[in-house]
C-alpha cells in the first residue's frame, strides 16, 4: 500500500495546502471576477470575459476619491502611530520607572478590546465634545488603535538589542544624539518598519471603527460596504486584485533586499 503510506507521511502537507487554498480562494475569485462583465448591478455571477474594468479603473463615481482618502489617512496614521509607538517602546524597554505596569496594560487593552466597543465609545466621546465627524476623527481613531500594534512590534526588536553596542559607541566618544542616529536607530529599523507596515495595513483596511466615526466621509472600505447594498462595480475587484499583487511584490522586493544585505555581511 505505497499510496496509503505516502498519504500518511504527507497528511500534514496536504492539510496545510488545503488551508492555504481556503485562504487564497477569495483572492482568486476577486481576480477572476475583475474580468467579468456583469448583467445587473451586482458582480456575483460570471457572465462574460471583458477587460472594461481594467481599462477604466476609476470609471465608477467616487471610488477613486474614497481610495485616495483611505491612502491619505493610512499614511498619516502610520506616521503618527509609528512615531508615538516607537517612543513608548523605547521607554518601556530601556527604562525602569513607576507606572510601568499601568502603561503596559494601557497598551495591551486596545488590542484585547472588540473593535465595535472601541468604535462606539469613541463616537460617544466625539458626540459629547460636539466634534465634526470626518477626516480628522477617522485619523485620530486610526492612530489610537494602530499605536498598540506598533509598540508591540518595536518592543520585540528593541528587547533583543544588545545595549553594549550603544555603550561602545559612547566609549568611542559618540554623543547621545549621534549614538541614537548611527547605532540605535539602524538596529531598531526592522522592528519600526514592521510596525509601520502593520499600522498601514490596519488603517487602510479598517472598517468597523471608521464606520462609526466617519460621519459623511467615505473611505475605500466604506465605499465597498455601501456598494454591497447598492451594487458592486467590477472596478472594486480590479482594485482588490491590484492591492494583492502590490502586496506580494512589495514583500518579495523587501525580502530580496534583506537577503542581499545578509550576504554582504557574511
Amino acid at each position, binding site marked *: 500500500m505505497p499510496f496509503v503510506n505516502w498519504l500518511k507521511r504527507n497528511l500534514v*502537507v496536504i492539510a496545510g495546502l488545503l488551508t492555504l487554498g481556503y485562504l487564497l480562494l477569495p483572492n482568486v475569485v476577486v481576480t477572476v471576477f475583475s474580468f467579468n462583465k456583469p448583467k445587473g448591478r451586482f458582480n456575483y455571477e460570471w457572465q462574460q470575459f471583458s477587460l472594461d474594468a481594467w481599462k477604466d479603473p476609476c470609471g465608477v463615481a467616487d471610488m477613486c476619491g474614497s481610495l485616495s482618502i483611505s491612502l491619505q489617512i493610512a499614511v498619516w496614521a502610520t506616521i503618527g502611530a509609528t512615531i508615538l509607538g516607537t517612543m513608548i517602546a523605547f521607554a518601556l524597554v530601556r527604562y525602569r520607572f513607576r507606572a510601568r505596569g499601568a502603561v503596559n496594560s494601557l497598551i495591551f487593552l486596545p488590542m484585547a478590546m472588540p473593535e465595535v466597543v472601541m468604535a462606539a465609545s469613541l463616537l460617544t466621546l466625539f458626540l459629547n465634545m460636539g466634534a465634526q465627524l470626518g477626516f480628522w476623527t477617522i485619523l485620530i481613531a486610526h492612530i489610537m488603535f494602530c499605536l498598540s500594534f506598533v509598540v508591540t512590534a518595536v518592543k520585540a526588536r528593541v528587547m533583543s538589542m544588545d545595549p553594549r553596542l550603544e555603550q561602545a559607541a559612547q566609549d568611542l566618544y559618540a554623543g547621545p544624539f549621534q549614538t541614537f542616529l548611527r547605532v540605535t536607530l539602524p538596529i531598531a529599523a526592522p522592528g519600526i518598519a514592521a510596525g509601520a507596515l502593520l499600522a498601514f495595513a490596519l488603517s487602510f483596511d479598517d472598517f468597523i471603527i471608521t464606520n462609526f466615526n466617519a460621519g459623511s466621509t467615505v473611505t475605500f472600505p466604506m465605499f465597498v460596504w455601501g456598494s454591497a447594498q447598492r451594487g458592486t462595480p467590477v472596478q472594486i475587484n480590479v482594485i482588490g486584485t491590484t492591492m494583492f499583487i502590490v502586496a506580494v511584490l512589495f514583500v518579495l522586493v523587501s525580502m530580496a533586499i534583506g537577503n542581499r544585505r545578509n550576504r554582504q555581511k557574511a
Partner: protein
Amino acid sequence: MATVTEAPPPLAPTAPEQKPPRKRGRLVPYWLLLPGILWLIVFFALPMIYQASTSVQTGSLEQGYKVTWHFATYWDALSEYWPQFLRSVAYAAAATLLCLVLGYPLAYLIAFRAGRWRNLIMILVIAPFFTSFLIRTLAWKTILSDSGPVVSTLNTLHVLDVTNWLGWTAGDRVLATPLAVVCGLTYNFLPFMILPLYTSLERIDGRLHEAAGDLYAKPITTFRKVTFPLSMPGVVSGTLLTFIPAAGDYVNADLLGSTDTRMVGNVIQTQFLRILDYPTAAALSFILMAAILFMVTVYIRKSGTEDLV
C-alpha cells in the same frame, strides 16, 4: 563552621542587561511616553468613561440625555438581546475552533516541512491582509452562491441534509445561514491564528522530535506529548486573537448572513448608527466588553500561561 556565602547560581542566559538609568535622564522615559500615552488616555480610556456614563443616561435625542443612574438599561438590553449575545459567543467559538483545526497544519507545514517554499507560503498567508477584507468577504458571496459549485457539490454529497438537520443551513442554500457566517468568520481571522502558531512552533528545537522518535514514540505520540504542549503559547494567543474580534464582528453576519444570524455587533451598530438609542447601545457594548474580559481571564487562568499578558 563552613558557612560559605555562596554566590547565587548564575541565571540562565537572560536578556542583555538594562542600562542603569543615569541621574540626569530620570525624566527621559516620561517625556518619551507622554505623547503616546496621552493619546491613549484621551482617545481610548476617556471614551470608555463617556460610554459608561452614556449607558446610565435616560432621555431622548430631541430633549437631550441626562445621567440618571438608570441601570435598568443593562437589564432591558440583556433580556431583549440575549439571543444575539449567545449567538456571538457560539459563532466566535466555532470559528476559533475551526481556525485552530485548519490553521495548525498550515503553521506546522511552514515551520517544519516547507523547506525553501517557506517564504513563499508566508507571503501568501500575509498578503491577503493587504487586500481589503470587505472585498474578500464579498467574494464568499460568489463562492457560496445558491447556484455555485460549492452548494451543488454539498447537495450531491448530501452534506446539506446533515447541516439542515443540525440547523446550520436552511433548504438548498448556504448563504444567509449560520454556516456561511461561521465560514466567513473563520476565513477572516485565520491568519491571526496561523501567525502566532507558526511563531511558537518555529521555536521548538527539531532535535526534540528526533529524540522522541529515538525513544520509539509514534509520530502521533510525538505530536501529542512534545509538539502540541510546546506550542501552547501560540495556541493561547491565537485563540484570543481570533475569538475576541470574531465575537465583536458584524461585517460577516451582515454580508453573509440574514436577520436570523445577527450578532451582538450588528445590534450595537444598528442601535448606535440607525436607531440612535445611545444608552442601550452603550450598555450593550459594555456587556460585550465585560463578557469578553471575563472569558479571556478565565481562559488565560485555565491554560496556565498568565505571563502572556
